[in-house]
């Protein structure tokens, strides 16, 4: 599988992500219920269903891949204004704007996209890696992607490495103590549970790498 380059390939990637979220919604909800209010599966499904509907519209004519990300982000932020929905939505919007002039996305452009999403979520959400949030999947994913490209790996290989790292990042959240959001109230009681936001982060890189393997 190839990493998305054109606008229509980014649409395909996001629809693939919507399907992954649909298949994982119950797991997301169960993970969130251990520490939060359990609505993460519902809100992510709501957001990505709306994104799929919008992007599947035959009338849709988007030339630039960045515009697809902006459209997906504003849709998510509109229909799922939960903390994660808003942070993720605006991460997509800002990333899309950063690559607005590109007609095709190469490895360097994707590197900018992931860094922008990570920075946006960290700044607006006032969180960092280790706080048991989506960043614990997105940061290792983005870093693994960059190091693989630096080593001279192909974009496809780098995307797969990013997914593996993001997935491991999600697994590692079991050892972490929550400091953000509702889960932050549980402090040390949060150790032992994996984070639902980080699961969501791993799904994003799974869709990006077009990884067929079950997760």
């Amino acid at each position: 599988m190839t990493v998305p380059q054109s606008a229509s390939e980014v649409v395909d990637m996001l629809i693939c992500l919507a399907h992954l979220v649909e298949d994982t919604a119950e797991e997301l909800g169960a993970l969130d219920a251990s520490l939060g209010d359990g609505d993460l599966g519902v809100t992510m499904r709501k957001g990505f269903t709306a994104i799929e509907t919008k992007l599947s519209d035959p009338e849709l004519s988007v030339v630039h891949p960045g515009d697809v990300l902006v459209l997906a982000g504003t849709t998510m932020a509109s229909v799922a204004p939960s903390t994660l929905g808003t942070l993720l939505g605006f991460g997509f919007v800002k990333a899309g704007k950063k690559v607005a002039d590109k007609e095709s996305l190469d490895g360097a452009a994707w590197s900018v996209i992931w860094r922008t999403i990570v920075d946006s979520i960290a700044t607006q959400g006032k969180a960092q890696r280790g706080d048991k949030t989506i960043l614990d999947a997105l940061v290792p994913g983005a870093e693994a992607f960059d190091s693989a490209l630096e080593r001279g790996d192909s974009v496809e290989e780098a995307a797969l490495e990013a997914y593996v790292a993001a997935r491991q990042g999600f697994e590692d959240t079991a050892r972490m103590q929550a400091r953000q959001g509702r889960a932050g109230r549980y402090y040390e009681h949060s150790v032992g549970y994996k984070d639902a936001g980080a699961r969501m982060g791993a799904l994003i890189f799974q869709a990006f790498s077009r990884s067929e393997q079950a997760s």
Partner: protein
Amino acid sequence: MKKFMNDPSSFEADMLEGILLAHGDELEALDPDRRALVRRQAPSAGKVGLVTGGGSGHLPLFLGYVGQGMLDGVAVGDVFASPSAMVMLEVTRRVNSGSGVLYLYGNYGGDVLNFDMAAEMATDEGIEVESVVGIDDVASAPKGEESRRRGIAGLFYLYKLAGAKAELGASLAEVKEVAEKAIARTRSMGVALSPCYLPSTGQASFAIGPDEMEVGMGIHGEPGMERLPIEQSHQLVSRLLEPMVQELSLGAGDQVSVLVNGLGATSREELYIVYRDVHRWLANFGIEVLLPYIGEFATSLEMSGMSVSILSLEDELVELLAHPCDTPFWRQCR
């Protein structure tokens, strides 16, 4: 749970339809879901646009104060949930007359996040946006950590004072200065006696014994400072007033406004008993009440309980507070 409603999933939609049917001469919806509401005549030429927003379940907060002399627009969320930044942006665009927009809202994580996002997008579009966040609830964080405090019924003073200043033609910087003054001089504290029930789930927001009260409980049922056996009104009032009066450094000769707010299911009779005790307690220290407000200003569905807010007055604030206003939920004549 017993509620007057239709399908629980249309609780917000049905409520908003009713609001627009009743107050459509004053309010206009910008979207089919009626989540973006503005004054009909918005934008008013040359006037700073005042925008608020927050979850449903708190009427008259937040949409009830959109009107002449108070706010220009509001973003409406689901019960106890933040509205989206996109709705806030839509309201912002409409109320901007070119003189800038000021966001005034309560300090809750989701609302802060979405208003910050909306401000960033509006700024990108060339709209000048400033924000002042309500943090009047003394019980929600200790002194020294004021920025972590929640905004409750004291938001009324923020809207009223900034609203009057904007109506008088002040600039964005001047309105913001008054809003910040309102924040610095307002303190609130509440007590809950029974929970509210979320329409979507039917679940009580918290459990409490028949003879208990929770001092400092938030307007979404956030845990308060302590749970105690219920006391007589005058005892409870002194428990609430002491920390507020101390933080505001009030003493003999000072003038204040007092707002006694019902949380949804508490009788006006009880609120006036509480007001009596507040008035007497303050008078005992030589503190004069100029403009009292007693009623429902910030509720929590059908929660029973009340909050007391104190605004430490000075000359300009007295004038702004007395300035006329006309909104669906609050009218004040000169």
